[in-house]
């Protein structure tokens, strides 16, 4: 019976994975590009979920990591001739250091301070990128272009991005169900109690920020490799806002929810915006309704429905 | 005649069952003390009467009227005032403003009433222009009690007025309560048994979110076994 529940639980996911594996065989180039964006922003949203959903701190400057990853990769590939893979250790180290710095600077503030200060830091970094002084390195508003292809075909890139999403997803799953993950949730639920038990709350939050930052940075690198260009917008408030929308709409604290949110937001951006001029308003209304009535996001509808179905099938009794 | 009755009142705070069926009565014109160890639910009982931690079930009657379903801000208008445990004197306001804010809409504080308050707490008359944050612990307690007096209410709920006070301040608080008692019914939460027994008429002892026993204060003073069992005196 339990095996059967297990199968039922993972059946839809397996079907989805198979569909996504077969997708490049019959889809247009455009669909592939959109799908790759979904995979990358899925990773970015997962990294944000670790911070917001599991640790309970709302950063409004998460794009700093995404932008850092993208720019580190682009600069090393273009200016120093590194291969894509050789840039990744630098991305990891760079994002970890930035995460530590931001964390040490801002995590001692109360939650709302953290939100505002990270927002300001994000804008600060954006201005740094687009400043006249850094133009010769960053290309200013134009960004950097012409990164070498890292794989031969679009299909290979597609599978790489998809594998990247799967790897990060299962890694994140491992992290949140590890002792570290459960401690983070305990701190989120009752910071005072966690402190009294003897947990160093600041350290745990710092670790969460660094992990989340590294994941976001890798997503940024991957985005640079796939688009073969980087833009200052990667670091801008718009990118942070996108990831917040994805995480909240999909359902924070579930890892899968943010990925679904990423798919939803990107598909809407790609397709709806050309049909409805005022689709953002509908988006805003849906967002407000989700915050008010579905704080666990759209994925919670699915969960509720499924739990009911399983329960009714097996009639679990006390 | 009972001014206040509680029947089987249960209160939950953040999922915790704090009051587990409190049943009590307080007689009109009397001073009833609510005794009991830390965490037995005394403060929650007071807050539940005020509607600040609403009762989950049960009935609270004030002068025969059920009040458990009323909003917290409606209950004081019936004639109930609270002196909370932490005193909660507003630190950004002057003492005068602390009294003024307690005056209910449409009413005015009369000169007589002010004289009555200053008569009870003589040191108050020099404090009016002082900000709450600049007061000493004893002064804050005075202001907290005075704030509950501005409306001439029938029932005063006073939570641990002697907590952390110097002995001389405790004595002046005792005199003040003895004076206030002449015009109002008081329910007093107290840990200091000596202080409480010197001014009380009736007593109630709480244990594990319930009233364990109650009666005339004289019975408790003469019953050392009961004191020992419930109060650890």
């Amino acid at each position, binding site marked *: 019976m339990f095996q059967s529940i297990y199968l039922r639980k993972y059946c839809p996911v397996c079907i989805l994975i198979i569909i996504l594996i077969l997708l490049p065989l019959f889809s247009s180039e455009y669909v592939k590009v959109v799908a790759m964006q979904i995979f990358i922003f899925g990773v970015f949203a997962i990294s944000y979920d670790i911070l917001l959903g599991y640790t309970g701190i*709302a950063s409004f400057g998460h794009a700093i990591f995404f932008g850092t990853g993208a720019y580190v990769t682009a600069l090393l590939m273009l200016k120093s001739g590194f291969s894509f893979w050789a840039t990744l250790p630098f991305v990891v180290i760079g994002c970890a250091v930035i995460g530590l710095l931001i964390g040490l600077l801002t995590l001692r503030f109360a939650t709302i301070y953290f939100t505002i200060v990270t927002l300001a830091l994000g*804008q600060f970094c954006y201005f740094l990128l687009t400043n006249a002084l850094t133009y010769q390195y960053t290309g200013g508003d134009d960004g950097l272009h012409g990164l070498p292809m890292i794989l031969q075909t679009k299909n290979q890139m597609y599978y790489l991005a998809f594998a990247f999403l799967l790897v990060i997803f299962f890694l994140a799953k491992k992290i949140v169900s590890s002792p570290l993950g459960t401690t983070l949730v305990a701190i989120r639920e009752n910071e005072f109690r966690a402190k009294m038990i003897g947990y160093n709350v600041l350290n745990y939050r710092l670790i969460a920020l660094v992990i989340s930052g590294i994941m976001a940075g890798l997503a940024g690198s991957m985005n640079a490799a796939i688009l073969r260009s980087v833009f200052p917008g990667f670091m801008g408030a718009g990118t942070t806002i996108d990831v917040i929308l994805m995480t909240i709409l999909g359902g924070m604290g579930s890892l899968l929810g943010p990925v679904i949110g990423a798919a939803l937001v990107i598909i809407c951006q790609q397709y709806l915006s050309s049909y409805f001029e*005022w689709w953002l308003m509908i988006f805003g209304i849906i967002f*407000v309704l989700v915050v008010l009535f579905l704080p666990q996001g759209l994925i919670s509808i699915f969960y509720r429905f499924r739990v009911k179905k399983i329960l009714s099938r097996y009639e679990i009794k006390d | 005649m009972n001014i206040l009755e509680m029947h089987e009142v249960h209160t939950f705070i953040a999922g915790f069952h704090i009051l587990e069926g409190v049943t009590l009565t307080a007689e009109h014109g009397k001073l009833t003390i609510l005794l009991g160890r830390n965490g037995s639910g005394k403060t929650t009982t007071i807050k539940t009467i*005020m509607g600040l931690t609403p009762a989950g079930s049960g009935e609270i009657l004030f002068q025969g009227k059920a009040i458990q379903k009323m909003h917290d801000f409606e209950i004081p208008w019936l004639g109930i005032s609270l002196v909370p445990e932490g005193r909660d004197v507003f630190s950004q306001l002057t003492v005068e403003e602390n009294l003024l804010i307690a005056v209910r809409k449409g009413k005015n504080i009369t000169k007589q009433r002010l004289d009555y308050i200053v008569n009870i707490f003589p040191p108050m008359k020099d404090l009016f222009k002082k900000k709450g944050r600049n007061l000493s612990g004893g002064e804050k307690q005075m202001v907290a009690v005075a704030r509950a007096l501005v409306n001439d209410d029938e029932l005063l709920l006073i939570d641990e007025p002697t907590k952390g006070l110097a002995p001389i301040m405790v004595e002046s608080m005792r005199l003040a309560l003895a004076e206030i008692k002449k015009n109002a019914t008081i329910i007093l939460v107290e840990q200091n048994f000596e202080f409480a027994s010197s001014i009380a008429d009736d007593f109630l002892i709480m244990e594990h979110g319930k009233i364990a026993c109650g009666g005339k204060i004289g019975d408790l003073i003469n019953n050392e076994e009961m004191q020992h069992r419930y109060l650890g005196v």
Partner: protein
Amino acid sequence: MTSQLFVNILLSALSLGVIYFLLSSGFALVFSLLRVSNFSHGSLIMWGAYLGVYLVKALSNFTLGLVVSAVVIGIILALVEFFLFRRLYGGNPLFELLLTFGLIYILDEAVKLIWGAAMITVDKPLFLQGTVMIYGEPFAILRLYIFGLGAFICAALYFLLNKTKLGLIITAGIENKEMVRALGININKVFTFVCWLGGFLAGIAGFVLAFFTGLSPEMGTNQLLNVLVIVVVGGLGSFMGAAIAAIIMGLAEAFLGFYLPELAILSSFIVMFIVLGIKPSGLLGEE
């Protein structure tokens, strides 16, 4: 630097500070009592600008148009408080923040639907055009008008918060809401009023801002960061702190703009890092 030039920069710095004060006062007020960081404040500012300019034209009366529009913006925020914020009190403050964040989309898109997305320039009314000579330097009448408006609003708010019963309740409520309720005061009504007032201030600020930036759907959200930085620097929850921080921001921006123009855009960050580095809770924030 001549003293004439100094005075000139100082005056523009101060008028910039006053504009910042107007922009952030509503946010600071709402935050101090409700502890809701209203991210849609920028959008309300933008609405104040569009509606104010429209109403001044429609009613052909400058003051009346300004006041009516500010009152309407106030009502928008009061309705938001009554129907939306109220469902979330006592829960995770994150959701209030996210809610106001979602409102940005609704408010911004609504403006685009009504007035279009294109930038609209705003002409100053005749009586605000021209300059006067101060200390031998020309100074725009518009800036003098803004000084006056800022001083008037500051004084009115001071009076309201310190000299009225309602002000006492607001000050007391910032500190301890439960005790205010225990005194028989329906603090929810006060919340709604404070939101109205916060919206009213945003409306006025937006109208003033329109003379400098013109009308565009982004004009408000562009100011949101400045508003947030000012409120954090002043100390979250401290209304006076925000006023002081606004003036400091104005000074920093004007003087940095003169000496190191390429850093002027970063002036607010520089001030923020310095202040928070020395005092993490902000200028007048409680520890």
